[in-house]
């Protein structure tokens, strides 16, 4: 190594990259567990392709749009097709690449069980090349002297509560609306029918992996700008998950209902999302309060979506969009030594609103445009047979799955 040593912070960043990478496995397990067995391979392949393929265009173009020189404050104009040997630069680039994969993978769960695989790849590419990095350039991009326009207003998003989760959640909402509900999800009278996941243990493993990865997500992000508050960020991350669980369970219990595992675990995820934006700026009691509210918000928003006949297969919109918005605003409300700062609240609201509008509009356009060139939604016969067979020609559980269709009919 020619006598050079990696700094402790760089080592921590590298470890965090690996932890955030494992979040893809977490999303895969979470989504796979919550869909029907006949669609398991398909949801896993969507998550797999996020990290395997979608990050390539981000490396080529998206990173530059997000982190390149940004004299206008609206768009990066350099650092395309990244190369070089600078450790800190390349590690940071890889770190940002993992964030991009997380944002686009949020979409995959919401629209599970009915989107064409090729169409999803196309839309995810648009999200990773345009939607995510351009908003990222506004909120995080540029330099201290020439920041992105939102950053220049003093917008705070430590670890991506807005940039990753609101953007991902808004894109997911656009997909849910454009694609429509799974067949039979709602009766003709609008009554929502439960489509239970086929493997709740796998779903729980996914949640544990996400919780684990979130320490890298928030901890490494804090290291970049607030290294003296890494411990606070990590503590708030864990407290946020716990409080999210508590909020969800309390709310459901007070309403006289049993606590389902998905309720508790989505509460944890909502809590994690809610503290992400302000993980280095919230005192622990206020982080707990923020996450407690988020846990309630997840359960309430899930019901709202159903009343609107919007079919979110895994609860991505309540967790990421709703809790992301709340968490972004909570920074303005509860920031240490600056609580209830009206200007900051206004900037946070502005950032959340811009993130939602930008992400929703671009994703909606992406879905509609892709739909003009290729089939966006699978035919109903594919929903019947399962996307594992129709999109990939295989079954997830060959020994145990009683597939209705004859797999030999699907192989070309």
């Amino acid at each position, binding site marked *: 190594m020619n006598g050079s040593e990696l700094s402790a912070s760089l080592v921590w960043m590298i470890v965090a990259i690996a932890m955030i990478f494992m979040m893809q496995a977490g999303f895969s397990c979470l989504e796979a567990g919550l869909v*029907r067995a*006949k669609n398991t391979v398909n949801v896993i392949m969507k998550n797999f392709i996020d990290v395997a393929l979608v990050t390539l265009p981000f490396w080529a173009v998206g990173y530059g749009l997000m982190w390149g020189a940004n004299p206008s404050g609206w768009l990066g104009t350099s650092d395309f097709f990244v190369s070089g040997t600078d450790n800190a630069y390349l590690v940071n680039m890889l770190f940002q690449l993992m964030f991009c994969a997380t944002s686009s993978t949020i979409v995959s769960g919401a629209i599970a069980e009915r989107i064409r695989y090729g169409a999803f790849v196309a839309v995810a590419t648009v999200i990773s090349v345009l939607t995510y990095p351009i908003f990222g350039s506004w909120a995080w991009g540029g330099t201290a002297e020439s920041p992105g326009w939102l950053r220049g207003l003093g917008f705070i998003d430590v670890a991506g509560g807005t940039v990753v989760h609101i953007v991902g959640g808004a894109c997911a909402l656009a997909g849910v609306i454009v694609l429509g509900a*799974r*067949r*039979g999800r709602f009766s003709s009278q609008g009554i929502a029918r439960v*489509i239970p996941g086929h493997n709740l243990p796998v779903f729980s493993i996914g949640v544990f992996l996400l919780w684990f990865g979130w320490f890298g997500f928030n901890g490494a992000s804090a290291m970049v700008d607030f290294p003296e508050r890494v411990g606070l960020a990590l503590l708030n991350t864990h407290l946020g998950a716990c409080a999210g669980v508590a909020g969800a369970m309390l709310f459901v219990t007070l309403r006289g209902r049993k606590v389902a595992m998905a309720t508790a675990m989505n509460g944890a995820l909502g809590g994690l999302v809610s503290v992400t934006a302000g993980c280095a700026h919230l005192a622990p009691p206020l982080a707990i309060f923020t996450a407690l509210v988020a846990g309630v918000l997840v359960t309430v928003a899930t019901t709202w979506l159903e009343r609107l006949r919007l079919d979110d297969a895994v609860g991505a919109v309540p967790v990421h969009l709703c809790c992301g918005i709340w968490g972004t605003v909570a920074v303005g409300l509860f920031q240490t030594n600056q609580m209830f700062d009206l200007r900051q609240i206004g900037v946070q609201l502005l950032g959340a609103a811009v993130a939602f509008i930008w992400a929703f509009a671009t994703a909606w356009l992406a879905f509609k445009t892709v739909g003009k060139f290729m089939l966006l939604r699978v035919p109903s016969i594919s929903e*019947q047979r399962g996307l594992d067979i129709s999109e990939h020609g295989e079954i997830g559980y060959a020994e145990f799955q009683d597939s*209705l*269709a*004859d797999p030999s009919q699907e192989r070309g």
Partner: protein
Amino acid sequence: MSADLRRSSLLGALTTLLSAQELALAMSIYDQEFAHQQFFLAAKYLERLSLSVGLGDRQRRVFASLNSALAHTAFVREPRAASPRALEGGAEQSVLQLSPALVVFGALCERVTQRLLGIYPATQSGWPAALRAHIGEMRVDDAVSQQLRHWADDPFDRRLQVNLNEQTLSELVHVLYLWSCDEIGPVKTDQIFAYIVRELEQMPEAAQFSPRRLM
């Protein structure tokens, strides 16, 4: 299918498998407990029969024979009435030559509709309209479309020409699937179809044409 026709189908199915005494008891059970039912479920009849007649290892053969007989009978024109829905331009036939595919298809449709309409009677009100709407969207020629609409009007009195190919039969099964999804949801639909497909795999015709090919 009329009750008389169904009764004669059962009699034909059970004659070779039960003794004279057992057969008399079986038909008595049918007359007293099942003849008046609009929707006849072979599985329920078999379950009731098993309580009175020790079927032992004959149970599987009895079940397969019942399913096969009921499926064949669905395509037999009843001798007493001229149907207002006679096949267009076709000579009337007493019994159509049935391919294994058509036998399996007929059994599957009958089982599905029996189970759905029997367990969820509220779905009956929407039955023909829902099917007609789906059939209207299918890409088949006008003659076939008209026959399919006749079929949709009465799920238990199907008279289809034998020249429907596998693709069309699959589409019809898919129509049933969609209707079921809309009425009772996709989870229960998958459970019912999976159960019935496993049931039908016991039919002799399933060895030549698996019901899974229609799914």
